[in-house]
């Protein structure tokens, strides 16, 4: 199995040079942070991931989880790893200090998440789901529920889940049937079946806190009738220790393509005792509070796997001798040249590299705005950050997971037949990566969210938070001598994006189906422009330093690759989406 080394140099570049990470400590509520805390956190996380989580990745995949009469056992070593993880305080990294968390900014959390996902995505699912539950409760639960549950979720002695999907409804949660019947004591009895529940049952923690979407008896049909409930596996006693077993049981676990060490459960709720979180009928709103963070987190899952794939592929490409370079022998003392000299192998490696570094920058940009949205008290600044996060969330989720899957595939391809066998772990990365395009809102749904909700909202106001800074940057630098070559391709793609946006907004108003037909191509176009902007900015920072430091020279090289070899895809996407939805919708249904 390939080695993994956390890309700390690039992370520091993204954190401090690209995003002025030190400024995070000026945000209200983050004043206790100091930038000198960030580096040790990243270094410690790297150590834990490299030394504890990574070695369990392959074995976890091989062994998987096992279900036995309602109990789920995680693969060997997971429990010990989780205890180390918990004791290190990692479960509370980005949680509020008032509940025992460390209060780190999202930006740091995002970088740490990348390392966890790169080394062991299955493992990362458990604390990841807990953090999702934490966020929803923190934003919406009553003080009593918060006091009872948040400290346990934050210190990791308890874990959390999100129970949304039912056998007949995933994307369309308005169809949800799970019932919640109010009780005299203010609690509710929850009954129904939820499927695809990650971390629904496991042996890592002493209790599990399920957040369950259910319908009250008098609730209206559809999405407005759904409320959110907290349902613990064990009902806590007065002193907070887990007591009586609640009516929430794992019926079975799924057998999956990837993330096999993550328990994906069927959860049966049978008159389970639960408590309302937030207002009745506002369940979806409560869920959406954590959706931005969760979707960013899924995008980062892809990023981590792509980075792992890159590291494996580069090592192999340096090592593996096959054929001779077309421009002349490079390793005369060897039987053949390392494959890293072949153009197509370079194409694949640089594609992965440009993807990972670009996505890391993009994710950090969004995480930075999440921090501002969460902490800023300056109205316009806060709103602009919220707008930005709203529009970029579907892009980060879908673009980063789609590109990551392609990247993981490239990484495997570099290995040839050796990538297809299990030994090197390259195929596991592909399998593990695949789910990220599906869960937390399939990527097609993300595209619909972008064109159907985010684009038209407030006559395009969310878009402003992206288009204005990018437009201003282009106007300021397109004529620069040195930077110009990096900005001109961005400018060209930006105009395509503007035109496509105008077109979709116009036709979509009259014919929503046209917008839907363009959605996926549009999201990719938008995403590539966002990456291009990040690459142009990275080039801007790197240009003056390239002479002294090979890191910046490599940055410029990758930036050039992105601008010349990846960004032109925007032309094809533009043509495709401007052709309209006729070719999709005119095709006779019975001819399929």
């Amino acid at each position, binding site marked *: 199995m390939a080695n993994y080394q956390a890309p700390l140099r690039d992370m520091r570049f993204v954190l401090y040079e690209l995003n002025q990470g030190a400024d995070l400590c000026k945000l209200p509520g983050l004043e206790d942070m100091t930038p000198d805390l960030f580096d040790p956190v990243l270094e410690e996380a790297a150590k834990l991931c490299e030394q504890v989580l990574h070695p369990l990745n392959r074995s976890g995949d091989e062994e998987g989880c096992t279900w036995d009469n309602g109990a789920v056992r995680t693969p060997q070593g997971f429990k010990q790893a989780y205890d180390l993880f918990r004791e290190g305080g990692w479960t509370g990294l980005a949680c509020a200090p008032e509940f025992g968390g460390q209060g780190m900014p999202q930006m740091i959390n995002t970088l740490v998440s990348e390392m966890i996902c790169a080394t062991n995505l299955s493992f990362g699912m458990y604390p990841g789901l807990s953090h999702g539950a934490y966020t929803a409760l923190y934003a919406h639960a009553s003080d009593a529920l918060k006091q009872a549950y948040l400290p346990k979720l934050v210190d990791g002695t308890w874990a959390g889940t999100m129970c949304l999907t039912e056998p007949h409804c995933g994307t369309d949660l308005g169809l949800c049937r799970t019932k919640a019947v109010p009780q005299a004591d203010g609690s509710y009895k929850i009954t129904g079946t939820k499927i695809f529940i990650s971390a629904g049952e496991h042996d890592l923690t002493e209790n599990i806190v399920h957040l369950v979407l259910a319908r009250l008896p008098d609730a209206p049909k559809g999405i407005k009738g759904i409320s959110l409930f907290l349902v613990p596996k064990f009902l806590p006693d007065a002193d907070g220790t887990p007591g009586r077993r609640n009516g929430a049981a794992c019926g079975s676990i799924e057998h999956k393509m990837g993330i096999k060490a993550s328990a994906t459960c069927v959860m049966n709720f049978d008159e389970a005792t639960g408590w309302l979180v937030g207002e009745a009928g506002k369940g979806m709103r409560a869920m959406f509070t954590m959706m931005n963070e969760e979707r960013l987190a899924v995008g980062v899952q892809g990023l981590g796997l792509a980075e792992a794939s890159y590291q494996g592929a580069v090592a192999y490409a340096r090592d593996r001798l096959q054929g001779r370079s077309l421009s002349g022998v490079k390793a005369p003392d060897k039987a053949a040249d390392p494959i890293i000299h072949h153009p197509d192998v370079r194409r694949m490696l640089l594609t992965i590299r440009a993807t990972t570094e670009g996505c890391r920058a993009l994710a950090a940009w969004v995480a930075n705005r999440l921090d501002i949205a969460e902490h800023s008290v300056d109205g316009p600044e806060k709103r602009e950050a919220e707008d930005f996060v709203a529009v970029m969330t579907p892009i980060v989720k879908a673009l980063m997971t789609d590109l990551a899957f392609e990247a993981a595939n490239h990484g495997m391809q570099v290995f040839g037949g050796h990538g297809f066998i299990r030994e090197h772990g390259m195929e596991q990365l592909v399998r593990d990566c695949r789910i990220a395009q599906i869960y937390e809102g399939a990527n097609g749904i993300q595209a619909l969210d972008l064109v159907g909700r985010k684009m038209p909202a407030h006559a395009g106001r969310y878009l*402003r938070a992206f288009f204005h800074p990018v437009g201003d940057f282009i106007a300021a630098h397109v004529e620069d001598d040195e930077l110009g070559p990096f900005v001109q391709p961005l400018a060209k793609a930006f105009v395509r994006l*503007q035109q496509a946006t*105008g077109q979709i907004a116009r036709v979509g108003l009259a014919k929503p189906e046209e917008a839907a037909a363009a959605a996926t191509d549009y999201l990719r176009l938008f995403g590539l422009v966002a990456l291009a902007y990040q690459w142009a900015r990275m080039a801007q920072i790197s240009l003056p330093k390239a002479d002294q430091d090979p890191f910046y020279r490599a940055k410029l090289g990758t930036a050039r690759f992105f601008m010349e070899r990846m960004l032109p895809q925007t032309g094809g996407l533009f043509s495709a989406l401007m052709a309209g939805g006729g070719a999709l919708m005119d095709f006779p249904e019975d001819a399929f």
Partner: protein
Amino acid sequence: MAEIRKVAVIGAGVMGAGIAAHVANAGIPVLLLDIVPAGAENRNVIAEGAVAKMLKADPAPFMSKRAARLVSTGNVEDHLDQLADCDWIVEAVIERLDIKQDLYARIDKVRKAGSVVSSNTSTIPLDVLVQGLPERFAADFCITHFFNPPRYMRLLEVVQGAKTRPEAIESVSRFADVTLGKTIVMCKDRPGFIANRLGVYWLQVAVVEAVDGGLSVEEADAVVGRPMGIPKTGVFGLLDLVGLDLMPHVNASMAKALPAEDPFHAANRDLPLITKMIAEGYTGRKGKGGFYRLNRAGGGKVKEAMDLVSGEYRPQRKAELELPKKLKDLLASDGKAGRYAWRVLARTLSYAASLVPEAADAIPAVDEAMRLGYNWKFGPFELIDQLGAAWLAQRLAAEGMAVPALLTLAGEKSFYRVEAGKKQYLGLDGAYHDLLRPEGVLLLADIKLNAKPLLKNGSAALWDIGDGVTCFEFASKMNALDPDIMALLGKALKLTAKSYKAMVIYNEGGNFSAGANLGLALFAANIAAWTEIEQLVAAGQETYKALKYAPFPVVGAPSGLALGGGCEVLLHCAAVQAHAETYVGLVECGVGLIPGWGGCKEMLARWAANPKMPRGPMPAVAKVFETISTATVAKSAAEAKELLFLRPGDGITMNRDRLLADAKARALSLVDGYAPPAPADYILPGESARVGMVMAAEGFHRRGIATKHDLVVAGELARVLSGDGADISKPVDEAHILEAERAAFMRLVRHPGTLARIESILETGKPLRN
């Protein structure tokens, strides 16, 4: 036929005073008389007080302050002899037969021969009113029933008595139509005439059925609102507006007047909740609240609605009903909404069908009365056509309800049809008859039945309206100006220059145009599409310039709102023929912009050329600055003239339906010897004036009148109006000002303050004061 040159109105209550004001709006002198209150020092106090009150009222009964000067006030004891000068005497006193008849006798002694006397009664039959009065009086007497408020409601119901001279009817009708702008609906001498007869029944049924059907007020109003095409307010909102306390009175008088077999009696049921609300002062908007209210208790503003079951207020909530778009689907649907809609409409439409020939000679009168008197979007027979008369008859029969004779007569036919390009209605003889428009009425809707547009795109069309005149029609959503309109206007000017003599810019939407499509502009700004925005500004400037210098006359014919770009198009026309109810203004500053399609330029030229302005370039500039920076809107065509949005020579048409014909005639009158205007040079005061205006704006800011962003906008406006660096000794041309407009516009449209304002207008309809 006697021409009406002076009018008297007796009774200075809300209706009488409103009628007098509206006569004055038409430029006709009017005498307003009322009684002398016991012990009054000022014997004219009632009439004078009414005029004073009207000058402060909003919506204003007067179209301009000047109109008020045409009203002379007096009292019926001292000034009745002045009726001798009046050609039409309108009685609008209290609804008591003895008082009216006593007054008629006194009027008859002083009025001149051939003058017409009419009553504005809504409850007393004409036959009864003229009982015992001389034949000569009865021959000159009719009922003219105005709707409240008289300035704004276009319906006038006219009842001709058995003895009334046809010429008297003709003379009053003609005057009310052409001069006052009313649409005349001839009614029979039956209780409530047409509009109130059906309207009161409908309201009563809608309220009773909502209570019986367990609907909330929001639900009932949602069903009655858009799907049935009935006022935005719905039923309960409408009752709040007219006053709940009116309902029992009107119902009682209707009940008294209608024969025992009339279906009204079955619907006329006292509702304890309404009785209680009236008793406690919850009489609607004029009272403590009605079915809806804004609860300001506790400092907040909570929209509340009356719970029809508990009789308590609760927070207003949106009706959660699935309402099919088509009326027929709604009536056929088996939900709460569908059942309610059916129960209300089945009875209302049946009742409407029973009113011909009972209260009206033919069906168009009923439809017209409901459209204009109750603001229904469709008259009852138009609604029946949406359902199918046969479908309605069948369902009524199936549910054991009586099928009105008129529905049986219609059978499978519709009540209206278009035959050979003419709209026709079904007569009582079972045959179709042409729907005749009064002479001098020209409607684009009628032209469209017969013709294809000369040019057309998604947002506009060009029509041939005969005699060598084209009509350019805005046809975009809300008539918002967009690139398509500009493109087609350019083409229309070329085509008209080639093959026609003149052009009219006119449409039959609710509003002429409230300006540029701000949604489009904001979206473009949000995606930083600056080049496109600048192109749109430039295209508008070019198009309006082509309009101004066209080799043929272009006449703008607005009605309703003509704001922003909609005002600027008028500013570039050779002449304007405006409907009296036209509201004109350059309101760009309200959304953080300045007029960018030549509005600044044209207003500068108009005020500079105004002979009443003091000498020097500054007074005109200051006047324009004041008008534009405060986004002043003229609340009538008359006021628009005072503000120079219209020129002194521009025409005003009182009757909406006559606007196109008047505009066309005006365009044709300009054709002979027409020459486009010569481009003007501008002498503008330059930098010092700019500084002066900015200082003035800062003064307003310090006094809390102007906001922070107002200052930014005013600064840009001052720069444009001062001539953007112009030198007082060197005239600048139009191009210079246009460029300044464009540059200022582009700077403002990038400003977050402006974007926030546009967003606020689009999303809330309210200006943002940032």
